[in-house]
Every structure is written in structure tokens, then in C-alpha cells.
């Protein structure tokens, strides 16, 4: 957990330096952002139902060159049992993704890459979901250059769950509104996200999130 946090901080520190170098090549566009999300985790181990919620903070970086695009996200936080749910241990949440994409149309981007989410409980080994997925993001302009809506769907074509160990399937979606300030390299995003992982013959885990992201475009 600590190792991952150090990695995230190092990555965030590297982004401005990378941005400066890319600026010299001029055709790159780089965007960084930080978000806070209220996540609701619903787990169904065996026949029971568990519901936890909490805050997860995420950093992201997106680099674009021509039609090619890359996105990195890393976040962590924790979720605790909601009122009315039998007392459950607090879970730390660490999640991240590394995607490469292609802008097939100005409004459509296709992605591929891994993403993972780990739930850590002290005294118990981590429970980690890892998926290789394909995604599609569609965008529509409301106020050209200022406000866009977007919908992103993903489907995992390969996945694993670490505990209990086994192959997993998953899919998810994210949709919302993205706002860019005029004449300022700042942006914000309000989004709703939901995904679900399943293991054959085993319980499933569903994560919902309401996220608010603010970002900066150091290179355009």
C-alpha cells in the first residue's frame, strides 16, 4: 500500500517535467487532474450482502498526440461499512488504470489496457481485481469548446481475482459532463461511474462512484 502511494506521488511529480519536454515537440497535448469520489462498494460474498462507502482520491494524466491518446489514473482511499450493515472491517481501496486509445472519430475514442482495484484489510491478504478491457468513449458538444457530455463503456475480455483466486469477468461505464474554462487551461468533470466484477460460481462486487475532477492543461 505504501509502495503504491510512493509510486503515485512520483508519477504525479514527473508529469510536469514530462510536459515541459513534450512542449518542445509541440504536437502533444497533456492534461492532468485530481478527483474526489464518493464510492459505494456492494459485495456479495456467499449469500450475504455487504455495503461500504467512502472517499477515494485519484490523480490522472492524459497525453494526446494526433489520434493517439494515453491515460493513467491512480487513486486510493477507504470504504467503511454503512449504518445498518453488520459490523465489517474497514477496507483500504487502491485502484488504477493504464490505457492507450485511438480517436476513431472526433467524437469517438477506443481504448485498451489494464485496470485494477485492490481492497486491503489489515490482517488479511489483499483482494485484487485485475482486468484487461476494451473501452469506447463517445463525446457530444453542448457548448463547442466549453462543455461536453461523455459516455464511456468498457468490457473486460480478461480478468483475474486474487482471493479467492480465479478468472473474472467485468464491465462498467462512466458518464458525465466536462467543462473547460475559456482562455484558461483549467477543466472540471462531474461523472457517475459504475462497474461490476464477477467470478464464475462466486459472489460479485459492484462499485458505484460520484466523482468530481478538476484539471489543468499545462501543454496544448
Amino acid at each position, binding site marked *: 500500500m505504501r509502495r503504491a502511494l510512493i509510486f503515485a506521488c512520483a508519477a504525479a511529480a514527473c508529469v510536469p517535467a514530462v510536459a515541459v519536454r513534450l512542449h518542445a515537440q509541440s504536437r502533444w497535448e497533456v492534461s492532468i487532474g485530481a478527483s474526489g469520489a464518493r464510492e*459505494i462498494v456492494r459485495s456479495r460474498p456467499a449469500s450475504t450482502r455487504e455495503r461500504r462507502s467512502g472517499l477515494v482520491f485519484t490523480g490522472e494524466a492524459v497525453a494526446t498526440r494526433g489520434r493517439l491518446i494515453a491515460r493513467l489514473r491512480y487513486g486510493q482511499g477507504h470504504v467503511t461499512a454503512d449504518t445498518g450493515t453488520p459490523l465489517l472491517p474497514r477496507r483500504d481501496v487502491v485502484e488504477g488504470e493504464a490505457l492507450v486509445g485511438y480517436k476513431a472519430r472526433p467524437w469517438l475514442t477506443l481504448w485498451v489496457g489494464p485496470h485494477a482495484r485492490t481492497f486491503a484489510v489489515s490482517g488479511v491478504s489483499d483482494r485484487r481485481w485485475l482486468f484487461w478491457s476494451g473501452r469506447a468513449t463517445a463525446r457530444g458538444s*453542448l*457548448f463547442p469548446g466549453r462543455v461536453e*457530455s461523455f*459516455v464511456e463503456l468498457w468490457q473486460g475480455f480478461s480478468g483475474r481475482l486474487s482471493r479467492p483466486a480465479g478468472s473474472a469477468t467485468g464491465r462498467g461505464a462512466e458518464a458525465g*459532463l466536462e467543462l473547460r474554462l475559456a482562455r484558461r487551461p483549467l477543466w472540471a468533470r462531474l461523472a457517475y461511474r459504475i462497474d*461490476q466484477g464477477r467470478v464464475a460460481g462466486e459472489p460479485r462486487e459492484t462499485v458505484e462512484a*460520484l466523482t468530481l475532477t478538476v484539471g489543468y492543461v499545462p501543454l496544448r
Partner: protein
Amino acid sequence: MKRALLLLAGLWLGVSAAPSAGAAQSGAALLTQGVRAYDDLEFDQAAGLLRRALAVQSGEALAPPDVKRALIYLAATELLREHRDSAVATSRRLVLLDPRFRPDELIFPPQVLTLYEAVRRATPVVTGRAPPDTTIHAGSEELAMRLYASAFHDITAKLVGEDGRAVRTLYTGPIADSLVLRWNGLDSTGTRAPPPGRYAIAVSSFDRQGRLARIFRVPLELVQVFGRIDTLPHPAPPADSLLWSERQPMGPALRALAPGALAGVAIALLPSVVASGEDASGARFVVGGTVTIAGIAAALSRHPGRAIPANVAHNDTLRAAWRRDVDDVARRNAARAREAMLGIRAGAPVVLTPEGP
């Protein structure tokens, strides 16, 4: 034998000369005898002689002044014979023949003068004469025709085609004693001369009740002497393809609304697609509602249906240019019409009585 031949020749000459002497008697001579009989108060004889005089149709017929003289004597004779209806009909015939005719007050008694005056006032009709052959510059010169009225009444004078269609109204209003009717050679548009052909000036007389009483009609034949009577066509108005939309179209507004509305609906449906069976939170409605409202705001910001001043000004410019072209063509047509020489030949006038005397 020679004596017999001379006798036959003499008889033949006598027979040949007899008809011409009889025909001369049935013309002016009959009128003279009729007037003499009237003066002798032999009214029955006078009436017969005068009717015979008016009935002569051959080359020995009465000259127009003698016709009028015969008619007034006949009217007086019939009145004095106490045939009032016949006197009225004869007087009306005289009014139609010459609305300006007045009986001699020294010859005829007051009751004849009174009767004729009453008939004249009750018989609205005009007469007149157009120059038999004249040439004018259409638009700048005029054909003048003086009309004479039997009495004060309302008339309408029109130039009509062969089919009776009015080409131009020349005068509408009252006429007292006389009136000069003028036509400048142009049709009702005032910009061009009518094409060559047969026309007529028709003057309709109306009685006191406004009913059509008589039509005085002068046939005209229009010929083009030189110049161009045909006209340039008016330019077509600007085509729709050249005009810009004067109102903000709905398309951009709908294109702005669609991403917001579709994304809003999609967000609300995401849990059922991705994680069916789970009780999703209400967070999706917060985000979906926000996106939908943003889409509506984006659509309204396009101001669908609002006027576009720049496009309105552009279209006004096009329309103004078209109107200038139309005015220019009208001016050029008028100039052509002015340059054209129009030959006008007038025929013999006739008086038509639509409903009988």
C-alpha cells in the same frame, strides 16, 4: 313606217324618263310636300309624306340635315294629331341621331318644344367624332375626341379590345354639354401601348337610376407606324437559394440538446445495463439531471427562431436590388412606349341601346 318608228322611239324615251322623275319626288320633294301639308294643318297627309320621305333608302334618300328636319316635323305632326307615343318615339330617334339638335322656336309651337325637351332629358346619350386617321407618340401625345351629351348624366369611357376586355379606362364621371376625351396611347399599366389590332372607344351612358342606357361606340384600328411597342419582361424575384435564413434554425439547437439529453438518459440507465439486479444509488440522477439541464441550456443558447439581423439585411439588399431592376425595366418600357409611333384609324360611330328605346 318611218313615222311609226319615230312614235315608238318617242314612247320608249318617255317611259325611260318617267322613273327618275318619280324617285326625285320621293326624296327631298316628299319632305317639301310634307312640310307644306304641315303648314296647311293637313296633319294626316303631312305624316304620310314625312314617313315616306324618311323611308327612302336609295340614292335619293334624305341628307342628314333633312333627316333631322323630317323627324322634328314628324314629331310635331304626331303630337298635333294627338299621337303622343308616336311623337315621343320620333323625338327619341332624333335625340339619338343628334343629341345637340334643338327645334326652331319660331317654327314649332311650345307644346312641341316642351315634349322634345322632356324626351331629350330622359334620353341620356352621347355622340362624338374622332379624327379619322391620326398618328401619335404613345405616352407623350394624345388622341382627343370631343363628346356631346343630350343631357347631364354619368358616363364611363373605356378603350376595349375586340373581345370586350377593357384595355384602359379613359373617363368616369358626369358629362354636361360636352367633354374632351383624351387617350395617350398607353394601356392600363401606363407603361406600354397595346399591341396593334382592332379596338373601340366605348362610352356608356347611365340614367338617373345608374342603369346602363346606351353605349356610344367608335371603332379604332391601331397600327404600329415605327418604333417598338413590345416591352422588356420584368426580372424574376430573387430565388430562394440566394436568400439567407432570416431566423435561427432549429438544427443547431437540436444538435446541442441531443448530447445532453441522450447522455442524461444513458446515465439513468447505466446500472441496469452494467449491474442489473443491484440497487443503484441516486447519484446517477444527480449527474444525469445535470447533463440534461446543460443540454437544454445549450439548446436555448442557440436562440432557435430568433431573427438574424445580418441575414435580414442581406436579403433586404437583394430585394432592394431586384426592385431597382423592376423599376428600371418599367422606365425603359415607358421610354420605348414613348418612342413608338401609334397610328389610329377611327371608324363610323354607332349607338347601341342594350334594353331598347
